[in-house]
């Protein structure tokens, strides 16, 4: 399991890692959803864990064309054979984007990100590495711009650091809340946009009045100061700041089982892809 903190930091008092906190809480955020458009990496881990815990009937939809995939191990890529073999239906990629995603059929889009700003806008295209260096190249948009626009709502999951949570994006690949409330509506975006960003430190949600991401929940063992230090802008804290519940033994067991099953045949690295 990789992490962007030191390995000494990576285990809290009890026997789970910060990544596991992130993954378990990301899965919990899918309670009640019917359909989820799943990005690979952390979102896929969360969605598969949700099927094993809070939402056994969750319909997983991958951009490779699979609807209702029921993998028994974490897929390494969005095109692993098991995703197709266990699906209720497999459709061509253009149909997936036109009829299913743009068609407004999908409740939740679950995204990772390289850079996020305070309005949950996303950059996965290029990063500025300073005046003497060429732009750093990221993978690009993939499905994200239209996932964020067309799904009923958007969840995001990524590790918390000032490298990821930046005051200004170098490039807007995917619009979250633009420059504040009303921007999505002005652009005619059907979905509600990002409603939660789940990290390895806590959960951020857009303030209903300003659409700015505020810290609403801390994971067990994490302090507000830690989160602020890992955020590139002056992070506001919700008046009603809460704490996430520690993972249950069932959640941890399910998560670890999924990952171990994955390892036997080409393990998931946990990196976004």
């Amino acid at each position, binding site marked *: 399991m990789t992490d962007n903190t030191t390995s000494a930091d990576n285990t809290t008092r009890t026997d789970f890692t910060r990544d596991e906190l992130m993954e378990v809480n990301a899965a919990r955020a899918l309670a009640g959803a019917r359909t989820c458009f799943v990005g*690979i990496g952390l979102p896929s881990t969360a969605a598969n864990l949700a099927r094993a815990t809070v939402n056994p009937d969750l319909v997983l939809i991958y951009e490779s064309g699979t609807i209702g995939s029921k993998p028994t191990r974490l897929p390494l890529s969005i095109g692993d054979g098991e995703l197709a073999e266990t699906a209720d239906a497999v459709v061509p*990629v253009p149909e997936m984007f*036109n009829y299913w995603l743009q068609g407004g059929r999908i409740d939740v889009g679950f995204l990772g990100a390289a850079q996020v700003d305070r309005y949950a806008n996303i950059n996965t295209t290029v990063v500025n590495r300073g005046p003497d260096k*060429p732009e750093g190249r990221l*993978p690009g*948009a993939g499905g994200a*711009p239209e996932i964020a626009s067309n799904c009923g709502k958007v969840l995001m999951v990524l590790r918390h650091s000032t490298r990821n949570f930046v005051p200004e994006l170098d490039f807007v690949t995917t619009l979250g809340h633009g420059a504040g409330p009303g921007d999505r509506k002005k652009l005619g*975006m059907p979905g509600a946009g990002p409603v939660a960003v789940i990290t390895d430190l806590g959960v951020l949600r857009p303030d209903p009045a300003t659409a700015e991401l505020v810290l609403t929940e801390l994971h067990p063992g994490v302090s507000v100061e830690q989160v602020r230090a890992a955020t590139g802008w002056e992070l506001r804290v919700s008046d009603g700041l809460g704490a996430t519940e520690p993972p249950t033994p069932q959640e941890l067991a399910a998560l670890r089982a999924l990952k171990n099953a994955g390892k036997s045949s080409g393990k998931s*690295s946990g990196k976004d*892809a």
Partner: protein
Amino acid sequence: MADIRSLHDAVADLVHDGDILAMEGFTHLIPYAAAHEIIRQGITDLTLARMTPDVIYDQLIGAGLVRKLIFSWGGNPGVGSLHRFRDAVENGWPRPLELDEHSHAGMANRYVAGASKLPFAVLRGYRGSDIPTRTETVSTVVCPFTGEELAAVAALNPDVTVIHAQQADRNGNVQLWGLTGVQKEAALAADRVLVTVEEIVDTLEPRPGGVVLPTWVIDAVAEVPGGAHPSYASGYSVRDNAFYQAWDPIARDREAFTRWIEENVRNEQSAKAAVR
């Protein structure tokens, strides 16, 4: 009508210097063997199109054959970066790489327009994104009924499309199944089509999820068992995830990459396999 040919001859006849070339396959059925044959023949100055460039295009880019890339997501799925792609974009090694960059929805619809012989396709996309500031193939149209402004993407019509499929019959009709991605669109959008197949069979038996391309939309079929490795062909092989992970350190290093291509692609034995 498709001729059944050796991979060597099919590539030599159908893929030319300077072509716009699409090699599609969404994780599944990626035509690696054909890409390796292109490297061996040194076909160059290519404009490559592909939704997910993947390791196959990392190899072609690193080999110095690519002038421009049309794409929507360039990574090593589940592993990380495409280092040869990054090195070309960031440092111009071994040559500068021009980019025409889209979202998946936009790329898929560019192929749909191409297959439909329309000059553009319409989608509700790219809203609020900076992507349109870096490409000339995204624009807007206004709905004549509602007044809504929508994104327009230019049709993508490759000079040649190469795909891998499970089976062809002796007349050159092709069937693929499993994840079929945008292969039908990429093939029907192209001027020329080459299909490598796992197996040539007497009769194509209809399969659940099967996509059939009749022989009269294909120029050549080449029998190349395992031609999708390290990708896979459902029913014939599984994805070699270990290879994708092993690729990361190879591609990170220019010399390691060059050596790998020399030893695994350009050497005599792989060349012989293609002529078969």
